[in-house]
């Protein structure tokens, strides 16, 4: 019990002294996850929208696949990306293994199905009158699509935040393709895993608090945006 209290005390000291190593780790985590989510949103939202609004053969199966992929084990994604970018892999010559870029790729693969699946349900949840109204007012296909997305904006924000929550907190993939290299590819989660294994509870706890704080702030931001409403 004693060492936990001591750990928390030490963790708070590390946070408030703005420890440069912790600071660097947090920054890298945010950078990698933000880039990955940005790219995921850019692809996932249009793909999800298209699946959501159109009718085609095999749509149900596709939706089920994306729903399943939401729970894609991070180590499996790690393994997959690893096999592609390792020296013998097809993308080996690009030298991506154990770089932040590799982590972005892994996180992109993890987040995209979440954003796609949640965008599908967001667009399907939209009142069918939105499309009809846009059409009767003379909107073309593109403007109609943008209008539907705009009506679904809060659900879309939630989709993006869910994706971010998944990747900022995942450890398996970042560890495998990033390599947890100090000062280069060490993220909050990989650092926590390592420091705990080493018995450095204080360091791990400090990062744990920050990780929680980040997740909490992002959700708070979403909540604030939703309550603000336009």
């Amino acid at each position, binding site marked *: 019990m004693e060492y936990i209290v001591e750990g928390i005390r030490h963790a708070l000291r590390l946070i408030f002294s703005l420890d440069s190593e912790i600071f660097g780790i947090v920054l890298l985590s945010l950078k990698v996850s933000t880039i990955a989510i940005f790219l995921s949103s850019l692809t996932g939202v249009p793909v999800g929208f298209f699946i959501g609004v159109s009718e085609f053969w095999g749509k149900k199966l596709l939706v089920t696949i994306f729903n399943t992929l939401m729970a894609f084990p991070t180590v499996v994604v790690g393994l997959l990306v690893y096999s592609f970018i390792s020296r013998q892999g097809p993308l080996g010559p690009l030298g991506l293994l154990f770089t932040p870029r590799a982590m972005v790729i892994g996180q992109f693969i993890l987040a995209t199905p979440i954003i796609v699946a949640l965008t599908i349900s967001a667009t399907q949840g939209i009142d069918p*009158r*939105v499309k*009809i*109204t846009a*059409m009767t007012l*003379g*909107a073309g296909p593109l403007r109609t699509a943008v*209008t539907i997305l705009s*009506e679904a904006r809060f659900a879309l924000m939630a989709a993006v935040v869910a994706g971010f929550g998944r990747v900022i907190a995942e450890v398996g993939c970042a560890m495998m393709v990033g390599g947890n290299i100090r000062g280069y590819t060490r993220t909050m989660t990989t650092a926590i895993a390592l420091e705990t294994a080493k018995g450095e509870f204080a360091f791990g706890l400090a990062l744990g608090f920050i990780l929680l704080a980040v997740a909490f702030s992002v959700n708070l931001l979403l909540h604030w945006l939703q309550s603000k*409403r336009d």
Partner: protein
Amino acid sequence: MDTFQFEIRDLTKVYNGKTVLDIPHLTIKKGSIYGAMGPNGSGKTTLLSMLSLLLSPTSGKIYFEGIDIDEADKHVLRQKMTLVLQNPFLFSTTVEKNVAYGLKARGIEKGERKKRIMECLELVGLEGFEKRRADELSGGETQRVAIARALTLYPKVLLLDEPTANVDRRSVDVLEGILKELNQRFGITIILATHDINQAYRLADEVISLFGGKIAKSPVENLFKGRVLREKDIFLFDTGRIKVAILPETDEVSHISIPPEAVIISHEPISTSARNSFSGEIYQVADGGDSVTLVVDAGEKLTVKVTKKSFQEMRLNVGSRVYLTFKSSSVEVF
């Protein structure tokens, strides 16, 4: 410009093997108000959806100002008209942005946009509502914003699906006034779907009665247009050809309907308490199973129903002279 606003030929719409609309021929004149009337499921909404190019016909043709819509750019045609839904949807933003929507879609510049928005909000009596959030409005206000949103487009055709179904009585009067004014001031062709016969006849120049997806000859039989005359304490409705005693003591009647079942037919004038008695000649006879439908020319052609038995006992036939008698209380007024 002698083309019709719309012309429909052999139009059908089939859903899941069921024909929901079947109109062999229908023309809509420019600058008139049409009331598409009928009960739920009669095909009113389907008709409006097809005229506004939201739905494609299963077969048949629709011409817009003489142009076959299948051969035209639908997007261009859609921008010439607009449909206001029964439960209009307002985008979750401000009233102003809602009204601006169609104008932006047409690439109309900001100054002109602002001008039209103000003009149309004023027209529907919602000036000062620009910054209000659309989802905080009442049902009547929502309907009026939707109409303003449609009007800013200066459409040639305004289609409305049950425009007053979800609004309070006071708003109904306001809305009907707006529609009349629009039609008179700007010559907009208006087609509205309604299940309210009174509204149809109050507003429309022509009423299209739909029943089971088909155009019915008349929704209510023996329907006459005219005005009320007063003779002493009796209220008479003058159709131009005959004068019919009516019960409600009001001048605000523009149409009457005489239910065919309410009319008594006889060879000789009969003395009863009924105020209406006309003599006429049987013009047409149609067998309807247990009953026979007669059309009697008594100044106006009146449809009368008799049982087959009476028809045979009375030896009625085309050309027979008969008397028609019915109570003033049986006359329906609109």
